[in-house]
């Protein structure tokens, strides 16, 4: 027992002293991310980076999503946060708290060409004129359809430039011919692949340009919910009970659905389906205003208290650069927002036409956010699920959201 304790103490001491001793003549940059599935590729990217920069050593810190933000916040307070970290839609909160390093001076110094990125994604990280992150990649939302089901029933395939009404017509024709348990249209009713697209498509908005007003009092916003509900009422889309228990993608994969509204993040899965050669891709149908769809994506941000900011910048520049994007694309973990690297992503698909993703990205708009998005987004999701399940009307539900969301946005202005 005694020997064991001594050993343990020795081991702890060793760990405490060994790490700094090893890193003595090198600059160490810490890099935090949350996705275990992407880590192997990032380990390779980091190895390459260290080859190019022998005097910088990078320590990758993996924290699971469920603890990532809590840990980042706590570490920020203790000034022990990673130097470089993944950032998502929470960016405005961190920018406002001045814990992120503005990157503009570094971009200017290295004459980095920011035009090389998809504009919407690049601009999402600019707040009050300062750039707080470089794009990691992006997600798009579009429509997947099963050609075989259309052809079997002799219904015309969706054509580019289609409208919501065109879709309803096609779906109604399909419905007349399908049997029980088959659905013309399916969706996953979380914001990004569904109503966050429909709201602006029908002329409403979630949050206005300068982030001061919630748009749930807009007629377009309310109407977009009504249109989704109408699909369920008409029986061309399964109702909320089915869609809430079983993912739309799973219904589509079991060949029970003809049209699927889905994000690019599930595209790899669809490409591996047994009937993948029958899957067509098309931008969303247009509602009254447009067919713009949501773009999501992550960025690489720098801690304002980073120990060695030049080294941290070198890492960010590399991570958002051509070689890293190529490795991420070929590793099938992210779709590049760096336009020149998109060519490496498309060949991943044996059956799907990946060019639709890039086309959709050109007109996309970034996932709506603000400083307190973590407070209002759960409200929007909570009430939206009540609207879509029919427990409250679209009018009442949107009013409920507006009444809770607007005060949160107001409190950001203080």
């Amino acid at each position: 027992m005694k020997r064991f304790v001594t050993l343990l103490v020795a081991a702890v001491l060793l760990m405490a002293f060994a790490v700094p001793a090893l890193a003595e003549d090198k600059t160490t940059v810490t890099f935090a991310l949350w996705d275990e599935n992407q880590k192997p590729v990032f380990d390779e990217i980091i190895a390459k980076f260290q080859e190019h920069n022998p005097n910088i050593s990078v320590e990758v810190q993996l924290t699971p999503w469920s603890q990532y933000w809590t840990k980042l916040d706590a570490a920020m307070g203790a000034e022990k946060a990673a130097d470089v970290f993944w950032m998502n839609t929470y960016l405005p909160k961190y920018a406002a708290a001045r814990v992120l390093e503005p990157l503009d001076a570094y971009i200017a110094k290295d004459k980095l060409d920011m035009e090389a990125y998809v504009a919407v994604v690049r601009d999402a990280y600019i707040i009050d004129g300062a750039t707080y992150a470089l794009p990691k990649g992006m997600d798009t939302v579009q429509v997947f359809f099963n050609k075989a089901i259309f052809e079997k029933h002799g219904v015309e395939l969706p054509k580019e430039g289609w409208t919501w009404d065109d879709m309803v017509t096609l779906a109604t024709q399909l419905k007349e011919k399908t049997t029980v348990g088959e659905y013309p249209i399916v969706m996953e009713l979380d914001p990004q692949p569904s109503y966050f697209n429909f709201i602006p498509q029908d002329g409403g908005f979630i949050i206005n340009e300068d982030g001061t007003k919630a748009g749930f009092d807009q007629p377009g916003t309310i109407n977009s919910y009504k249109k989704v509900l109408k699909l369920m009422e008409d029986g061309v889309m399964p109702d909320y009970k089915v869609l809430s228990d079983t993912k739309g993608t799973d219904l589509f994969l079991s060949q029970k659905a003809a049209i699927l509204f889905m994000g690019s993040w599930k595209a790899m899965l669809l490409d591996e389906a047994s009937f993948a050669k029958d899957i067509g891709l098309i931008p969303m149908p247009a509602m009254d205003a447009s067919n713009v769809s949501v773009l999501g994506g992550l960025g690489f941000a720098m801690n304002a208290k980073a120990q060695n900011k030049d080294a941290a910048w070198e890492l960010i520049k590399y991570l958002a650069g051509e070689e890293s994007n190529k490795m991420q694309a070929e590793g099938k973990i992210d779709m590049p927002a760096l336009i020149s690297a998109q060519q490496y992503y498309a060949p991943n698909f044996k059956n799907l036409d990946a060019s639709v993703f890039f086309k959709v990205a050109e007109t996309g708009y970034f996932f709506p956010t603000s400083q307190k998005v973590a407070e209002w987004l759960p409200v929007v999701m909570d009430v939206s699920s009540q609207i879509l399940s029919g427990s409250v009307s679209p009018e009442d539900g949107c009013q409920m959201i507006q009444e809770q969301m607007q005060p949160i946005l107001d409190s950001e202005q203080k």
Partner: protein
Amino acid sequence: MRKRPENRLRQGEALAGYAMIAPLFIGLIVFYIFAFGQNIYDSLTNKSSFGVPDFVGFANYVKLLRAPYFYQALQNTLLYVAICVPLVVVFSVLVAVLLNVGVRGTGIYRTLAFLPAVTLPAAIALMWKWLLNYEFGLINAGLNALGIGSVAWLSDPKVVLFAVSMVFVWGGVSYQVIVLLAGLQGISRSYYEAARIDGANSLKQFRYITLPLLSPSIFFVMVTSIINVFQIFDIIYLIIPQYSSGTAASRSLATFFFEEAFIKFQKGYGAAIAVAMFVLILLVTLLQLRLQKRWVHYDE
């Protein structure tokens, strides 16, 4: 004069004793008592993601008392208690008594009954999530075969609370059965023999011997069940699909706390919710300790 070394010995023994409980005790102080005090302090601040929190007095409690979500979560939690606790108590007594009869293969039955207690809650929840699935679930398949039709167990706001309760009772009974079984083994056979000689049938034996003598164990089962149900979280978190329309109708106080503190990052407010839960559970437990005199018989 002779006492001295003995005293020293005793002191040494005491020290050794303290040293042995120290690891647990220090853990208790750091992770429970200190954290408890810290939580009360945090509930009086506007602690959020980072920065030094400001002291805001009782603002979080005022906000809590004005929040419709709080009352809904409170109502749901009380419903969980009202549904789950009686079912857990009745079923665990029933199962324990049946397992105590001593039929052939008792060991197998006891093992089966105890299985849910040693199964990961996540595994239990995932299994039930599939059983309760609207489209592909076994339960709905059974109901359809009986001609009753499918029930949206996890999405229908009217049903979802019962679905969660059902899973909780299923998983919650088995541990309590062990407690009750131990209690049953402690009841002397001679009482039953005497009763049989006096002509009491099994039902009467159960009513007048088993129940009173088992009451301390039943009391323990009740108190722990009530505390467990008041803190119900993992089952809800795991079986209710994200974005389900049943989210609001199944939200318990613990879920509400989790959402405010760890999704919306309002940690001060979350701390206030935790304090409210503590007070509530404390009051209910005190009430039970008070009431136990009326029905719990301790074997003197």
